[in-house]
């Protein structure tokens, strides 16, 4: 348990507010704005009450004068705040510490070959903050000295070359926004519901603006063999020296040898100072700490193309090179493990993406998939990039199931879990892009369920 998870550092707790629970004398306390009323409420035997609850109840009283947060000026309105550059590199507010990358207990046994999930339940828009980008390392991560990092291109090229970071950062660059999703995202849910929140069910997903050199520029610079050079191998500089095969056609299309994410250099956990960006393709191909690309005339059948990242079919056949992350979506607010505050209006919000192109449409169901309404897509809507969708909902307090269903510009419709299982069984681990269901209970609690 990290220091942030200790209840000591929880910023508050959720309470059910009973109706009319304040005594007449307590209402007078609230009305008079007596500050010790608040302290009293925290420590009194009336543990179920609190300032907000008191107001929720007292505000309907004709004698209600107002919220003490308004009537009594807070310290920050009456004193001097902190100077500029008090923190040389800014951090999120201390009130935001619940949002952390987290491991799923029991998923892996060694944290050097593991994954941490991004807290999608707390994100807005489509950009993932760099410090909350999901992690997947195969043999631990390093913070490499960029002045000593080298990038080599060899194999079927006229001129095998070595580039320093200085060299690469002098070359023409592009900046483009793309999602990255691990091929094993949502893997735990193939057989049945296994994890409680969207962080663990979909959190091997992030989206950044990446800056770097188009791989096509570097291929041309080395004079790649345009007849025989059908594939390339990307290789990392870490202990695992991760290797993945990329088809030349795809490499020339939109791959980037990237050194930056979201306006700053890559984070060490994300491959500082150099990684490959392979838009639309599962994260394992986005080789981190990229040291080498080799041009060849056939695929390389590396460990993560033969033993892992192969999809097991019901007949025992393993599918190889299943790289594309097909169209998928998920509602992030409200989502599993959360509680709605009250009946009434909610902005239901979520993310949609496709490894084959742009999101064309997202539909949302408020009755477990029987009827669907088309959600609003927020701009920008970009190829192989997260797209944010929103739709209004009035919750009447009854039990129901929320779902979202994305359609991409190839016309592909995100499938239901039973449709996926009918073709691929339940043991293929990778590429589960099923429609996600969240059950809302009359208690307000939202839970991960599978309904179709």
């Amino acid at each position, binding site marked *: 348990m990290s*220091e942030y998870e200790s*209840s000591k550092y929880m*910023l508050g707790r*959720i309470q*059910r*507010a009973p109706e009319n629970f304040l005594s007449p004398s307590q209402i007078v306390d609230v009305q008079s704005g007596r500050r010790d009323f608040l*302290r009293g409420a925290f420590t009194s035997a009336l543990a179920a*009450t*609190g*300032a*907000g*609850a008191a107001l929720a109840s007292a505000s309907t009283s004709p004698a209600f004068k107002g919220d003490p947060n308004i009537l009594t000026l807070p310290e920050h309105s009456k004193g001097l705040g902190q100077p500029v550059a008090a923190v040389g590199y800014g951090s999120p507010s*201390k*009130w*935001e*510490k619940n949002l952390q990358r987290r491991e799923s*207990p*029991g998923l892996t046994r060694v944290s050097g*070959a593991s994954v941490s999930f991004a807290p999608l339940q707390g994100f807005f828009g489509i950009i993932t903050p760099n410090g909350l980008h999901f992690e997947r390392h195969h043999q631990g991560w390093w913070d490499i000295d960029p002045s000593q990092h080298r990038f*080599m291109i*060899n*194999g079927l090229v006229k001129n095998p070359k*070595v*580039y320093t970071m200085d060299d690469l950062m002098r070359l*023409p660059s592009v900046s483009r926004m793309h999602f990255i999703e691990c091929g094993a995202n949502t893997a735990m849910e193939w057989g049945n519901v296994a994890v*409680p*929140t969207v962080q663990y069910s979909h959190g091997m997903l992030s989206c950044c603006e990446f800056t770097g050199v188009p791989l*096509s*520029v570097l291929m*041309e*610079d080395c*004079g790649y063999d345009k007849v025989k050079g059908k594939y390339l191998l990307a290789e990392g500089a870490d*202990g695992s020296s991760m290797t993945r095969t990329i088809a030349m056609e795809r490499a020339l299309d939109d791959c980037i040898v990237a050194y930056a994410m979201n306006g700053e250099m890559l984070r060490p956990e994300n491959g500082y100072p150099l990684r490959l960006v392979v838009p639309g393709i599962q994260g394992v191909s986005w080789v981190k700490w990229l040291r080498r690309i080799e041009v060849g005339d*056939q*695929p*390389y*059948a*590396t*460990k993560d193309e033969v033993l892992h990242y192969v999809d*097991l079919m019901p007949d025992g056949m*393993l599918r*190889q090179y299943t*790289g*594309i992350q097909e169209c998928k979506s998920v509602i992030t607010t409200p989502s599993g493990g*959360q509680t*709605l*505050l009250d009946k009434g209006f*909610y902005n239901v919000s979520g993310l949609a993406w496709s490894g*084959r192109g742009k999101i064309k449409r997202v539909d949302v169901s408020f009755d477990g998939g029987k009827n669907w309404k088309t959600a609003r897509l927020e701009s920008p809507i970009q190829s192989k990039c997260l797209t944010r969708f929103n739709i209004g909902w009035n919750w009447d*307090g009854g039990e129901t199931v929320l779902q979202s*269903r994305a*359609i991409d510009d190839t016309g*592909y419709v995100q499938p239901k879990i039973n449709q996926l299982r009918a*073709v*691929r069984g339940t043991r293929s681990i990778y590429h589960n892009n099923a429609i996600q269901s969240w059950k809302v209970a*009359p*208690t*307000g609690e939202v*839970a991960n369920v599978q*309904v179709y």
Partner: protein
Amino acid sequence: MMRSLLLVFAAVAMPAIAQDNFPGVGRTATAAEIAAWDIDVRADFMGLPKGAGSVKTGRQVWEAKCESCHGAFGESGEVFTPIVGGTTKKDIETGRVANLARADYPQRTSLMKLAEVSTLWDYINRAMPWNAPKSLTVEEVYAVTAYILYLGDIVPVDFVMSHKNIAEVQNKLPNRNGLMVWRAMWDAKGRGDVNNVACMADCKQEMKKISTMPDHARDSHGNLAEQSRLIGPTRGVDTTKPIATTPLTGRLVTVAAASAPKAEPPREASNVAHLAKKYNCTACHATASKFVGPSYAEIAKKYAGNASAATNLMNKIKQGGSGVWGAIPMPPNAAIPEAELRQLAEWSLRGGK
């Protein structure tokens, strides 16, 4: 924008000699540099170094450097996925591992899936052992590969594997015919194999099979109340409490904590635990049970009452070594600052507490 940019580069680049496009950027790699880094071995054995290694040598390397994680017979799932098991003589004849088709078969070992022997050689060579990758000699890589295949009954006990006979070994792999390139999810213009239709009203629902998290697993991922934002339309569920059963009748509210949180709580033990994670100590050492290296509890027990233990341990962490706890070497950690070295040593001597 990307497309037009590329067209410009393509137009400029193609007729000219490549490196003249960006004068002063990059240089030609030397033969020695390429040899140092170009270590990949392809399925057609391109890149495979000449050499040989025996099952017998492989067993020695295995016991010294592999067994602690993978088990004496490559069967262990304690740390990583098991390597050996689940294959039969029949599979070696057919080239398809029958157990992969069985939904009730409990695990999928590396040898069950392995379709290319080059994959095994390449991966051991580039990434093993776990804490000292790229440290094995060519002979040791051949030998360990041969030993794993021996454990899987694929080669005999007196086998010597080499670049000359590796193709014959390939033809005996139990799952050599069990892998297919799936172009539908490889080609940019491929089409998926699972289809849904975008029905909008009165859609078919089965609603029979409903899977949910079991109640006892409610807090399996920690208290969810501590994993969501403290303001907004929802709160994380407090999973330390029983499931609420009464419907919402009023507004849920946040009761402010009595005092604001401190930005960085000073907690010495957890800070050192953080250091142990940061410097990868936890990759090999656990608190209570032996892992790759001894547990912190074992370290504490061994040096209890030894006045110079902290200083000795600091040197050990810094310089590495082997022999005290067995043959597996502890790698040096020269980059850890002195103050943190001391913290780690003292913390280890307290049993990781």
